[in-house]
């Protein structure tokens, strides 16, 4: 299956998903509410079969907080990037994808630790690296007068 067919197939899952061709990978922008459903379909459909989540990153876009999922199919060897974002900065919540890819459990704990993004349905959401008194250091508005030297 080539790239165009794959894009067509993913579009058929949900007509509202916005798909564009990035420099390197095909990028799928999905609203936070549809994230879990689309991820499940991408994983379970036997023609897409995205079984390997190899990178999950949190990103602070300034006004929004977002998540970037790099997923690959080990069977067909194609890669897509799933992106989602939320304007909510106080209590950002996304659906956990732990039940689809087990590796997400650690990745999501890391993102919770460093970005303060909560995941609904995560079995054990605790801070991973830092103590409970820390803020969320990878956010752009994080202030640490002692350790961050601004030039």
């Amino acid at each position, binding site marked *: 299956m080539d790239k165009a067919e794959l894009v067509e197939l993913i579009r058929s899952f949900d007509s509202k998903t916005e798909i564009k061709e*990035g*420099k*390197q*990978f095909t990028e799928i922008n999905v609203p936070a509410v549809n994230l879990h459903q689309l991820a499940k379909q991408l994983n379970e459909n036997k023609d897409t079969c995205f*079984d*390997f*989540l*190899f*990178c999950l*990153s949190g*990103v*602070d876009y300034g006004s929004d907080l977002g998540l*970037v999922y*790099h997923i690959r199919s*080990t069977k067909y*060897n194609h890669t897509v990037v799933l992106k989602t974002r939320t304007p909510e900065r106080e209590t950002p919540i996304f659906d956990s994808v732990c039940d689809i*890819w*087990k*590796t997400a*459990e*650690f*990745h999501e704990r*890391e993102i919770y630790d*460093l970005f303060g993004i909560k995941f609904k349905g995560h*079995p*054990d959401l605790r801070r*991973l*690296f*830092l103590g409970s008194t820390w803020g969320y*250091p*990878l956010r752009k508005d994080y202030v640490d007068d002692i350790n*961050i030297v*601004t030039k």
Partner: protein
Amino acid sequence: MEEQIKDIGIDEKQDYIINMGPQHPSTHGVLRLVVSLKGEIVKNVEPHIGYIHRGIEKMCESITYPQIIHLTDRMDYLSAHINNEAVCLNVEKALEIDIPDRVKVIRTIMSELTRIQSHQLFWATFGMDLGGLTCFFYGLRDREKIMDIFEETCGGRMIVSYNCPGGLMYDIHPNFQKRVKEFIKYFRKTLPEYDQLLTGNVIFRQRTAGIGRLSLEDAISFGVTGPCGRASGFSCDVRKHDPYSAYDRVKFNEVLFDEGDTFHRYLVRMEEMRESMNIIDQLIDNIPEGPYAVKMKPVIKLPEGEYYQKVETARGELGVYIISDGNKNPYRVKFRSPNFVNLSALNMMTKGFKIADLVAISGSLDLIVPDIDR
């Protein structure tokens, strides 16, 4: 909290909970494992990490691209050269620079030497974890020879920082080819000794064969890559599937096994050392002439966009994800470190085995803690 404990089947009154680490010889660094035991049987292993979390991803946001390279050395210090390469390849890809052939070949040789010395140290410490102290001396003796080659060419022994965007920091030492060939000749003779000492040992086999099985489905779902993934039959060698540097012009086999137990994770690394020597053999006499670096602008600015580059370190797939907003500092850098992901499978692998097996299993994952914490 109480509900969570019930979910994973831990009986707080009956079970014996012990702390393994942070200062424990077999965790190879500051990794703390909270182990719940029923008698001698492991019921649950909970890794507590972050003891040397330095916030490398945050630091990257306020420094320039050539400076990032020196931080990546400090993540997986046994694959330092390969980590450098990942960042360099990503920057070069973003700027669309063509790298001279000489650089590609030298990078590949150095990467494979790095892989050999990392696997040697794995062999040394794995033997030591399982009670064979002789391995430690043999392994470090041979590793020293590669360290000396690195020292002569790069100046550093472990933290090499030999790559820079656009090529290499300096040309190879005139002795480089001669010493690498000497080492390969020497190590081809010594590697069978490793097998005689440990691979065939009955006690070693009993402690590793069939222990800590990881199925192919779990390996993919947990994202376990590198030698640990390949021992379970997960074909995940980036050098084969997505060749970078000079890997597209050399012939080598991807070492794959189906069993997925501790012994085969060990065996993959032994075979990989042989494959690495084959790769070096094919390249060492054919280093093309030419410049060792491309002239770069003094301030490197990546065009706006997102870039992802993966490489195969000695422990698995390292991904570098850079989001650039066009400035000299990256907007966001994410390192997908192989050790962090491999650690997440530890709990599943150890359940139901004895506590002595936990040492063997975590040893076979070959964890490097600074890479987990970043």
